[in-house]
C-alpha cells in the first residue's frame, strides 16, 4: 500500500475515534443519570464543567495588605519572610510554597511603598519561578519594566501580578495543578500570617481586620479542597502533612459564627456597576483568634524553614 492510502486510513481512524469519544461521553452522562437515586434530572447540573479542573478561586494576598494599610497599621518589615532563606529551599514543594510566600511579601512591600525592599522579593520570586521551571513568567522584560517603574506603585503592582498570573497560567496549561495549588496556598498562608501578627500591634481600626480573619473560614475550606486531589499521593508526603495541618487549623474556624442576609443588588447600567448589598456578619472571639494565630504560625514556620 502507498503512503496516500495510509494517510486516508489514519484520517478515517481519527474521525472514528473522535466520534466514539463524543458518543461515549454522552453515554456516561446518561448512565450517571440512571445510576442516581430517584432525583429529578437537573440538566444544568449535568452540564457543569469545573474551571481548570478546580472549582475555586482564592482571594489575592494583596487584598489583605491593602486592608491592613487602610486600617492604619504601620509597615512591619520584621514579619516578612527573609530572602536569605531562599538558598535553603531545595525541593519543588518548598520552592512552590515560598514562591507564593514571597509573592505575598512583595505585594505587602509595594502596597506600603517600600520599594527599596521590593527588588529583593521580586528577585527571590524570579529565582523560585525559574527553579520550578515556570518558563518565562518572570522574564528579563518583566524584570526590566519593574526596575524602570520603581516609585510608581500602581505600575509595580500591575507588573508583578502579571508575572504571577503568567505563572499560574503556565502551570495550569501544563497540568501542574499541584504546583499551582502550592503557590496559591503559600500566598494565602503568608497573607493570613501577617494579618494575624500585625493585629498584635497598635493601630486604629482593628475590628475590620479581625472580621477579615473570621471571613477566611470559607477560603481555608477552598484551599484544603485545592490540595485534596494530591492528598494520598505517595510522592507528595510533605503536601499531605501540610493538608493535615490545614485541616487542624480549620477546626479552629468551625465555631466562628457567620450570619448571611440576602439583599437585592442594585445596578447602575450607565457605569456598568452592580452593588451587591447582601450582608455577612462574622463573630470571632479572642480565644478563637489566639488559637488560629498559634496554629497558623506553626504552619508558616513549617513552610519557610
Amino acid at each position: 500500500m502507498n503512503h496516500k492510502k495510509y494517510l486516508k486510513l489514519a484520517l478515517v481512524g481519527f474521525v472514528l475515534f473522535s466520534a466514539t469519544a463524543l458518543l461515549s461521553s454522552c453515554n456516561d452522562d446518561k448512565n450517571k443519570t440512571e445510576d442516581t437515586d430517584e432525583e429529578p434530572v437537573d440538566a444544568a447540573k449535568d452540564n457543569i464543567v469545573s474551571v481548570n479542573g478546580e472549582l475555586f478561586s482564592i482571594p489575592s494576598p494583596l487584598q489583605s495588605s491593602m486592608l491592613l494599610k487602610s486600617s492604619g497599621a504601620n509597615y512591619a518589615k520584621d514579619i516578612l519572610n527573609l530572602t536569605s532563606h531562599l538558598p535553603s529551599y531545595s525541593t519543588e514543594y518548598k520552592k512552590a510554597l515560598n514562591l507564593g510566600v514571597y509573592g505575598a511579601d512583595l505585594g505587602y512591600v509595594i502596597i506600603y511603598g517600600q520599594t527599596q525592599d521590593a527588588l529583593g522579593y521580586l528577585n527571590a520570586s524570579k529565582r523560585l519561578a525559574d527553579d520550578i521551571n515556570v518558563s518565562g513568567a518572570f522574564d528579563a522584560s518583566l524584570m526590566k519594566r519593574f526596575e524602570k517603574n520603581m516609585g510608581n506603585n500602581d505600575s509595580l503592582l500591575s507588573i508583578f501580578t502579571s508575572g504571577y498570573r503568567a505563572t499560574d497560567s503556565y502551570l495550569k496549561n501544563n497540568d501542574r495543578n499541584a504546583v499551582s495549588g502550592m503557590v496559591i496556598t503559600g500566598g494565602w498562608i503568608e497573607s493570613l500570617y501577617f494579618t494575624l501578627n500585625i493585629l498584635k500591634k497598635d493601630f486604629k481600626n482593628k475590628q475590620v481586620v479581625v472580621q477579615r480573619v473570621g471571613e477566611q473560614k470559607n477560603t481555608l475550606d477552598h484551599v484544603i479542597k485545592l490540595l485534596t486531589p494530591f492528598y494520598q499521593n505517595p510522592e507528595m508526603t510533605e503536601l499531605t502533612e501540610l493538608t493535615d495541618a490545614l485541616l487542624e487549623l480549620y477546626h479552629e474556624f468551625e465555631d466562628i459564627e457567620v450570619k448571611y442576609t440576602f439583599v437585592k443588588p442594585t445596578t447602575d447600567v450607565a457605569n456598568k456597576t452592580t452593588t451587591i448589598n447582601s450582608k455577612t456578619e462574622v463573630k470571632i472571639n479572642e480565644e478563637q483568634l489566639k488559637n488560629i494565630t498559634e496554629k497558623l504560625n506553626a504552619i508558616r514556620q513549617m513552610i519557610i524553614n
Partner: protein
Amino acid sequence: MIRKFTIALALIAALVSFGNKATAQCDTVANACVRHMTNKYISDGQHYRALLLDKEIAEFQSTFYGGTTYRIAACSGLGDGNLVFRIFDKDRNLLFDNSEQQNASYWDFKFISTLDCVIEAQIIPGKAPSGCAVMMISFKQ
C-alpha cells in the same frame, strides 16, 4: 505491522495537536480578554479557563471581600458578547446575569460585605458550538 504503527502514530499526533490547539486558543482568548482590565484594576494573579462543548456550563466558587470593587471579565472567541455569565450567592440567589446587559463582556461589582459566590459561564448558543471560556477577576486599587 508498519501500517498499524503509522495509523496509531497519526491518531496520537492528531490528539496531541488538538490539545495544543486548545491551549493556544485559550491563550488567544485570554490575550483578547485582558484589554477589559484597565490599569485601575489589579489582577488576582490566577488564570481561569474551561473548554466548553455545546451546552456545558463552567462553574467555580469565589470569595469577594466587602468594601472592594471587582471587575469580572468573561470571554470566548476574539469578539465581545459570546459568553453568558451569572453570579449567584451561596443560597443560589441570582446576583447578576450579563444576558440582561446585552451579554456585556465585563462588569464591575461593588461588594458591601464579604460574600462567597458561584460564577457560571456558558457560550451563547449559535455564537459558537464550542470553545475556550476565559474568566478574569481583578479588584480596584
